[in-house]
């Protein structure tokens, strides 16, 4: 496979300081004490006879984000360009780490072993005599590895850059002030007829109104008229019976009013009084315990009561 690499001149910045594994500052809290050892040479040189606290090594090794990260570290430590990896040496060092991890019985991710195999393979291919047109990058056994290392490194870098961006509630804070009370004028809640009807339906179901009552459309207008008649009656004042009717409503309206008055009488909410036989009827809101004085066969005006 042909690596899709742009030819860019020279290396922008091989960091002069061998980068500590994985931006040591990224995890200072967990590793404060033992990590101090790791910034110096002793560990990286890996002298077998030098005692290194196993915990320190463990933390050191675990600081790597994977085989690519470990390889990058080894390359940087050698202070060589990523494009010119001394594959034999890097492989040797890599294997040492792997062995060390195994010795420490660290849980070794499978990726580390796969990389070990890859390195061994590249190393052996480097030893093979190469065709005349050697130099073609396609022929360089390291090409794929270099591409992967570079690709990983750029995102390792990008992650560090991302971490450096001013971040909310770490570096910058949204400026805010407290709001005063909300303004006094508030929109009144909107209600749809359906909402109210549903509410009524539910309360009706709960109260078993369906079972015991038969509310007719006619009855509704009667109840409405009951309210109107009641509201028209002033406390303790007599109102002429005829005044409760509006003749422009026609026969149906008069009927409704009349039934409303009857219903109000029945519920004891009004009193209908007649001073003398065949004299004018007067109505008032009930005050004392209601006394029914209505002459029930009194014809309604215009014969509206014949329903």
């Amino acid at each position, binding site marked *: 496979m042909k690596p899709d690499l742009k030819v860019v001149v020279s290396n922008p910045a091989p960091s002069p300081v061998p980068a500590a594994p994985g931006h040591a500052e990224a995890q200072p809290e967990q590793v404060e004490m033992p990590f101090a050892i790791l910034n110096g040479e002793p560990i990286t040189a890996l002298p077998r006879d030098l005692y290194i606290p196993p915990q320190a090594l463990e933390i050191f090794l675990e600081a790597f984000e994977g085989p690519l990260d470990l390889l990058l570290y080894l390359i940087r430590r050698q202070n060589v360009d990523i494009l010119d990896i001394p594959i034999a040496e890097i492989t040797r060092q890599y294997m040492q780490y792997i062995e060390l991890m195994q010795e420490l019985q660290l849980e070794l991710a499978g990726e580390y072993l796969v990389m070990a195999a890859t390195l061994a393979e590249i190393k052996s291919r480097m030893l093979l005599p190469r065709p005349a047109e050697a130099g073609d990058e396609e022929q360089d056994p390291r090409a794929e590895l270099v591409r992967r290392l570079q690709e990983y490194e750029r995102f390792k870098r990008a992650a560090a850059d991302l971490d450096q961006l001013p971040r909310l509630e770490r570096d910058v*804070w*949204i*400026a*805010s*002030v*407290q*709001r*005063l*009370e*909300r*303004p006094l004028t*508030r*929109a*009144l*809640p*909107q*209600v*749809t*007829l*359906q*909402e*109210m*009807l*549903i*509410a*009524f*339906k*539910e*309360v*009706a179901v*709960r*109260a078993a*109104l*369906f079972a015991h*009552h*038969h*509310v*007719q*459309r*006619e009855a*509704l*207008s009667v*109840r*409405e008229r*009951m*309210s*109107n008649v*009641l*509201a028209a*009656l002033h406390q303790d004042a007599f109102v002429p019976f005829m005044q409760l009717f509006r003749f422009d409503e026609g026969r149906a309206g008069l009927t409704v009013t009349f039934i409303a008055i009857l219903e109000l009488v029945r519920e*004891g*909410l009004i009193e209908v009084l007649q001073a003398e036989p065949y004299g004018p009827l007067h109505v008032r*809101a*009930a*005050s*004392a*315990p*209601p006394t029914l004085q209505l002459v029930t066969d009194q014809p309604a005006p215009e014969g509206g009561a014949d329903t």
Partner: protein
Amino acid sequence: MSEEEIRNILEAALLAAGRPLTLPELAQLFDESQRPTAPVLHAALAQLDAQYASRALELKQTASGYRLQVRARYGSVIARLWPERPQRYSRALLETLALIAYRQPITRAEIEAVRGVTVNPNIIKTLLERQWIRVVGHRELPGRPELLGTTREFLDYFGLRSLADLPTLAELRALEPLEPQELRLQLPAADDGEAAEGGAESARAPGGDALVAASSDPAL
């Protein structure tokens, strides 16, 4: 540390905190070695407030400390950021209203008897304020409880010519229950005017038809 820097730090803290800060809290912002004294802090806060004189901000000292707030004069402008979420009436209020409409004239006790729970006086108050109900009389019982009925405004609001336009109980049976939440989702705040209008219109149709239309309404 310059006076300006002290002011900047105080302002930064008050704006970042978004809550009142006490004088000790403000003092804690500074390293002990260069911590301003209380009088210096007071002076800095006063200067800060003076800087806001021509602005929409003001420094306010409350029981819990100092805080920055938007001047009341700008309150109504700022309020536009929070488009009034239409408030909702409670189920209890709607049931009470419906009972008054269907069973008027009716006393609170009678409403309670049907609903099986006491009626919060605030509900009656709200309905009276909204002028949807009125006291039409009193029942001649101990305490002379008020008899409640609906008003002309009630009919107008719901687009009814008269209560007879309301469906009968039998017709109500056909109504599907609806979730107020759902309804609200269907009616974005901006459309409220229209929605109310539409509702009124359909309700203006003869009772039965309106209900049929209503239950086939996708909003239900």
